[in-house]
């Protein structure tokens, strides 16, 4: 009983902080509540996010705001066709003064890394992110270098300009916990956004407001750890597995999601439960996170693509047809 009480208190405290974080980011990034929630879920679940949306929707602002709210470090890499792996991870330099090699760390040594237009670089450069995303470390000249914690990559893709891009290989896509679509805000939100920005400013930068940190990086790590105490019934784990396996059996999908998707769904559903002030996961939580966790891990068949169906259409169908856990 005591454990249960402690757990509930912990959840309550975490919920208060995360709600405050969510509210602050929501005030900056107006009209993108769903995106903010999904980014927070990915952060709490210790994962990386692939953001897809047209330019000008506040992806950089989101990353910067998130970093500022948790006293984290933020860095941005603009991916271009001539970007080299060492430009991301870092490299060694011979220090003439000291007469020895020293490591010059790349931009990945940060808490929040915004990999802008990641598909503009060839696969070799994209692959440089693989180790750091999965292992949370970088090997430079054979020496593993630790990355600060928490570490989160927010990679962006532009859905329109596909010319001159390199599609991300499946292995790398699988490293992203979620794929989040960021869309245009609603009319009222856009009016409010424009009003706020134009009220006391003469340019369109959105970061003039000094944000005070709501928590620190250590607190986020603690919450990440505490998520493991959120109850997930075995039936729900089976449900998540059924959903993922259904993607492998669907005739509309030529390559289904990997077991990493099952793990991702459960991790995300725990974070989702926390955002909803619960210490246990419901099937609804699984359903809510299943689509962003799986949409980038499946490959549709040609017939389905010709019919104009998207990964979300097929996943919605799977979510409707796979039996939800009961009794």
């Amino acid at each position, binding site marked *: 009983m005591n454990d249960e009480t402690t757990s509930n208190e912990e959840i309550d405290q975490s919920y208060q902080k995360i709600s405050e974080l969510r509210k602050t980011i929501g005030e900056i990034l107006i009209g993108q509540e769903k995106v903010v929630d999904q980014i927070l879920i990915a952060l709490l679940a210790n994962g990386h996010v692939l953001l897809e949306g047209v330019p000008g929707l506040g992806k950089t602002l989101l990353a910067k705001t998130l970093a500022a709210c948790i006293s984290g470090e933020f860095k941005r890499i603009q991916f271009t066709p001539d970007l080299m792996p060492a430009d991301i991870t870092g490299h060694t330099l011979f220090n003439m003064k000291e007469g020895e090699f020293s490591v010059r760390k790349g931009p990945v040594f940060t808490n929040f890394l915004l990999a802008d237009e990641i598909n503009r670089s060839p696969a070799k450069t994209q692959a440089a992110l693989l180790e750091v995303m999965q292992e949370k470390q970088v090997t430079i000249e054979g020496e593993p270098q630790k990355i600060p914690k928490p570490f989160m990559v927010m990679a962006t893709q532009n859905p329109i300009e596909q010319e001159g891009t390199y599609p991300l290989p499946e292995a790398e896509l699988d490293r992203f916990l979620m794929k989040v679509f960021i869309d245009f805000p609603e009319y009222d939100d856009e009016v409010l956004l424009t009003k706020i920005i134009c009220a006391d400013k003469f340019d369109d930068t959105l970061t003039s407001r000094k944000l005070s940190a709501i928590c620190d990086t250590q607190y986020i790590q603690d919450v990440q750890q505490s998520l493991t105490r959120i*109850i997930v019934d075995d039936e729900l784990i089976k449900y998540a597995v059924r959903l993922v396996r259904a993607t492998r059996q669907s005739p509309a999908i030529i390559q289904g999601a990997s077991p990493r998707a099952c793990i991702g769904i459960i991790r995300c559903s725990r974070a989702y439960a926390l955002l909803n002030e619960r210490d*246990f996961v419901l099937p*609804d939580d699984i359903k809510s996170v299943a689509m962003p966790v799986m949409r980038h891990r499946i490959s549709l068949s040609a017939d389905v693509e010709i019919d104009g*169906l998207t990964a979300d259409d097929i996943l919605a*169908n799977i*979510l409707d047809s796979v039996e*939800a*856990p009961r009794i």
Partner: protein
Amino acid sequence: MDLSRINVKPRIRNAWESIDLGFMMAKSWWWVLFASWFIPAAIVYTILTIIFYDDNWLAVVITWWLKPLFDRAPLFIASRKLFSEDVTIRETLKALPRLYKTDIFPWLLWRRFSLTRSFDMPITVLETLKGKQRTRRMMTLHQNTSGPATWLTIVCVNLEMVIWLGVLGFFMLLLPEEIDINLMDVIIDEGMIAQLISGSIQFFAMALIAPFYTMAGFALYINRRIRLEAWDLEIRFRHLADTQIRKMIASSSVVLLLVSVVFLVIPQNTYAGSNESLTPEQSQVLIKEVLEGDDFHKKITEKGWRLKNISEKEEEELEGIPDWLISLIKFIESIFGDMEFDDKDESSNNLAAILELLLWLLAAVVVIYIIYWVLKFYGVIVPRKKAAIDDLAPPPEILFGLDVRKDSIPDDVAGEVMNLWSKGRHREAVGLLYRSTLSLLIHHFSFKFYDGHTEQECAGIVKQSGNLDLSNYVGLITRNWQKIAYAHQVPVESDIQLLCDKWKEVSVSEK
């Protein structure tokens, strides 16, 4: 028109060969034809450019619209040159007012988009026919030639476009890379200079193509006349007559040969040839006698089956129909009538059959379309995208994944639940109550749930129905079920007691 002075070999050609002949004529008389088109057109274009200096496209469009007038001067010249008559540009320009005013409005209004313009123009310019006469004449001339005449127009329009865009593109290729300019911008740019350059090139393209187009149409027209009026035979007879005359003079048998020549040249006068000494009055009397004779009053009745020849009736009926429609039908007829009009009835029947088939098809499409929309309106059929999704998700055979048959639910649900609860079998108790509630919702209240619906979604569906009591009940049992099933926490007993108390009330309530 002296046929003996014709400049081309008068033989029957097919339509395409005639177009080739027209192009050859345009090449032979190029400068005079080009000048006769270009000078008046350039004057008009220049004036229009000055008037619409901000909107040069208007000058181009108006010049283009006046092309049926500008085409007449080359046609006038060609009609003279064909029969070895010399005509200068000055004479042509003098004749222009007369040429232009003939049928000016029809050609600039409803005939402007005629696809057989160059072929029809000689009827206006050279024969100056109007109204019914023109219609009849066109019907005669158009047989098996309207198709090639139409294609001639289409090809020439395309050639104009190719020259226009080609020259524009050529000049753009010569521009240095530093000058950032787009071909489409030049074509549709609103800038004055760009429009002027583009418009002028377009005008020159028109001027270059016009002589060829006019001459090809004229050659088609001449070819039809050679066929219809047997110019080739007439010229041949004349040559024979000349040859015979020369031979007769040479052999001093003038009288005898002259008779034979007359016989050859004018075969229809054979019966009158022997009456050369008669006076006109005597001839008239003789002619009258012959006409009144039995040969001209024989009546023979022949009976038998044959296809109806409706061409004459057609001609009368067609008088009120626009020329372009007649041209279109002739064009279709020429395509589907095996390209031969000798057997006109057969081609007419073919055309009629095809048109009938097309009309039936159209009617069928309209009916199917209406049926489709009616069915779609009433939700009998669903759009392809939705259907594709539904195909991928066939409805589950076991509804909701639960045994929700009525007979699987105990008669006294509340009693059974409390009995299980009192024995400490909390999960079973709440489970039974939840399953009974679902069964009730499905069978009694006819809610439709699918396998993929979670408890929360089911509760949401019930809430949407507007039945507040039922909604509250389902909400409460759902929360308790979720608590025990997923949070592994035992619900408060009072809640279960309340749910059991209300069970009877809910289970017998109206839908």
